């Protein structure tokens, strides 16, 4: 414990100097601006910045990526409040009350509440990141191939279940992502799989160009294929967060922080689900239930605290298990690997200081977010006024450069284009992209873990179901899938209702 505190102090001392602070302010600003532009996601921001920072020292590069991540999720609340259009998927819950507050002439106050909630949620998450990552890493040291197989599958299945409106399509996208990760040389025997004799495919589909295509080019096509909508930008009053709001709703902040971190830790469940869960929990216990959806300060506070708390929450399993909690943390984890950091249970053994470096980076990002929440709010709103017809071609140029920059190969640009067109068409059919990303990141772990596990058990599948952690993960995964079968769902719900009635009957 004391050793951990010293390590954290060392990291903080190293990061509180000129260049890290300059990087923090710059990257958080980029994140806020990206978040302000509806359609551009945190995943895209991190993927593009990974290519830009590829030649930088690892700690500087990861700091920039984390600041952009935090900034994007925070920045997305601006358009949610002012335009009723969530800047990122994570800010959809903030639209409900944020926009209503703006319509009542309280847009500035709503942005102040969003700032307060985001900062408090992020700080709560940072504390959990510092405390839980080493503990989880220690537990994960006892995990073997059997457990990692289920963790990978669990992440993809959970992401598929919650990412879109149709779980079956989500799972299908997860399986496609897992398969796409296997294209190229097999990690055990160096055998070429599904490369069709194309030498560039030997190393597999590069993650960053694929993600830039999936989240960048497909978004450009989606935005430009839709007709223009006229929207009114609401007037802005004072944007300063009020201490009174924080003190009044401290229970909501704490509850949403816990929910946000918990949802963040769950593999494959992203910031959007954290915001919705926090919002629903706040509404359930609120004394002002009737205000929810009509401009509730508590509702907005809960949503913004939840989504920001889930950012450090999502980084926890990425660091400790190499199983990312969300699509943006999956890209962040990939960037760490590119920079020579190998996340997973051995991280606390091989590079323990790095975990505390990430804690310090997330803390700096939170301070950067607070800075932009207190100052420069009005000038930053100017970006919302830039027409999509100018922004989108510029983003495409960045997508092209970004895809090329990773390995200086034109092939990666073509991968970006192909993925972008495919994802554009699939999104039109309601196929969600995040499960594909999780599959792409976790495919290699799943493949190696299944085959190594079977090698260890000499072809016996039993250990995949009989080891305690495996049994729990397998049970949750199968149960989650079965809950989407209407007959099973009805049976479980009626069983629960009967059990509840029985317990209440006995209690009375």
């Amino acid at each position, binding site marked *: 414990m004391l050793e951990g505190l010293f390590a954290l102090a060392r990291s903080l001392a190293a990061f509180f100097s000129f260049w890290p602070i300059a990087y923090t302010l710059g990257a958080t600003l980029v994140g806020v601006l990206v978040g302000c532009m*509806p*359609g551009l996601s945190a995943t895209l921001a991190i993927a593009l910045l990974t*290519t*830009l920072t*590829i*030649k930088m020292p690892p700690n500087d590069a990861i700091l920039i990526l984390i600041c952009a991540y935090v900034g994007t999720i925070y920045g997305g609340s601006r358009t949610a409040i002012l335009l009723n*259009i969530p800047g990122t998927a994570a800010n959809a819950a903030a639209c409900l009350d944020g926009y209503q507050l703006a319509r009542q002439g309280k847009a500035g106050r709503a942005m102040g509440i969003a700032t307060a909630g985001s900062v408090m949620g992020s700080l709560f998450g940072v504390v959990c990141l510092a405390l839980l990552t080493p503990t989880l890493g220690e537990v994960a040291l006892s995990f073997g191939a059997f457990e990692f197989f289920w963790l990978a599958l669990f992440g993809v299945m959970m992401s598929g279940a919650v990412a879109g409106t149709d779980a*079956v*399509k989500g799972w*299908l996208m997860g*399986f496609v992502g897992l*398969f796409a990760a*296997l294209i190229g040389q097999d990690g*055990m*025997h160096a*055998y070429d*799989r*599904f490369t069709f004799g194309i030498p560039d495919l030997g190393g597999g589909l590069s993650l960053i160009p694929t993600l830039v295509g999936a989240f960048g*080019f497909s978004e*450009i*096509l989606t*935005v*430009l*294929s*839709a*007709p*223009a909508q*006229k*929207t*009114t930008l609401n007037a802005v009053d004072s944007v300063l967060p009020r201490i009174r709001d924080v003190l009044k709703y401290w229970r909501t902040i704490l509850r949403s922080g816990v929910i946000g971190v918990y949802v963040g830790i769950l593999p494959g469940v992203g910031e959007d689900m954290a915001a919705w869960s926090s919002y629903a929990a706040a509404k359930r216990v609120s004394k002002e239930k009737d205000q929810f959806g009509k401009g509730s300060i508590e509702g907005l506070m809960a949503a913004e605290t939840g989504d920001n708390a889930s950012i450090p929450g999502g980084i926890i399993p990425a660091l400790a298990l190499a199983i990312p909690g969300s699509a943006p943390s999956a890209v962040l984890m990939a960037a760490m690997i590119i920079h020579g950091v190998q996340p997973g249970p051995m991280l606390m053994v091989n590079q323990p200081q790095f975990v505390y470096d990430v804690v310090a980076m997330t803390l700096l990002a939170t301070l950067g977010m607070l800075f932009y929440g207190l100052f420069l709010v009005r000038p930053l709103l100017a970006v919302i*006024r830039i*027409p*999509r*017809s*100018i922004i*989108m*071609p*510029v983003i*495409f*140029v960045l997508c*092209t*450069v970004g895809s*090329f*920059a990773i390995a*200086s190969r*034109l092939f990666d*640009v*073509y991968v*970006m*284009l192909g993925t972008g067109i495919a994802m554009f068409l699939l999104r*039109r*059919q*309601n*196929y969600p992209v995040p499960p594909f990303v999780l599959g792409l990141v976790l495919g290699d772990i*799943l*493949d190696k873990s*299944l085959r190594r596990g*079977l*090698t260890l058990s000499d*072809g016996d599948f039993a250990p995949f179901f009989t080891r305690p952690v495996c049994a729990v993960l397998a049970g949750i995964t199968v149960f989650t899938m079965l809950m989407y079968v209407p007959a099973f769902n009805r049976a479980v719900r009626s069983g629960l209702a009967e059990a509840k009635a029985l317990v209440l009957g006995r209690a009375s």
Partner: protein
Amino acid sequence: MSIEAPSEARPSARADVVAGAIWVAIGAAIVAGSWHMDRLERQGVQWFAAPGLVPGILGLFIIGTAMIIVVRSIARLARDGGEPAGAAWSLRRIALTLALCLTFAVGLVGHGLPFGVAAACYLFLHIFLLELPERRAKGEVRRGALVAAAVAAGVATVVSLVFQELFLVRLP
């Protein structure tokens, strides 16, 4: 002010059937490819460590989920009839975007033309053409061209400088 946002719509049952059938075909191709993949038995590799094992299983899962989509959509089709998809596509805009993006990324980039020049040409054309209907309606075509040229020159210069000089990243 005017902003453009994508509209979400539920795909038609017919489109779901077609997409599901394509996924079944892709899954079947993956299973077939995995089955015919070398199992490396001569190297003493057991069946459970063969390279085609996991892709084959995933192919089966893809077929399974795609079949659910197909069956579900056929039932929806029988119940509701072939309702049209709800979202409006601007085919002209999407064709223009695809043509310009592909020409830039496949035709111009990496084929001798300096990146800054290629990017400036692409940006000017794309921005100008996207804004043309609105500018023409307002009688501001020349102003639109000037704005597009200014943005194109500025962005191409800044991107080239930032990537190449500041972050030392090679440009195509």
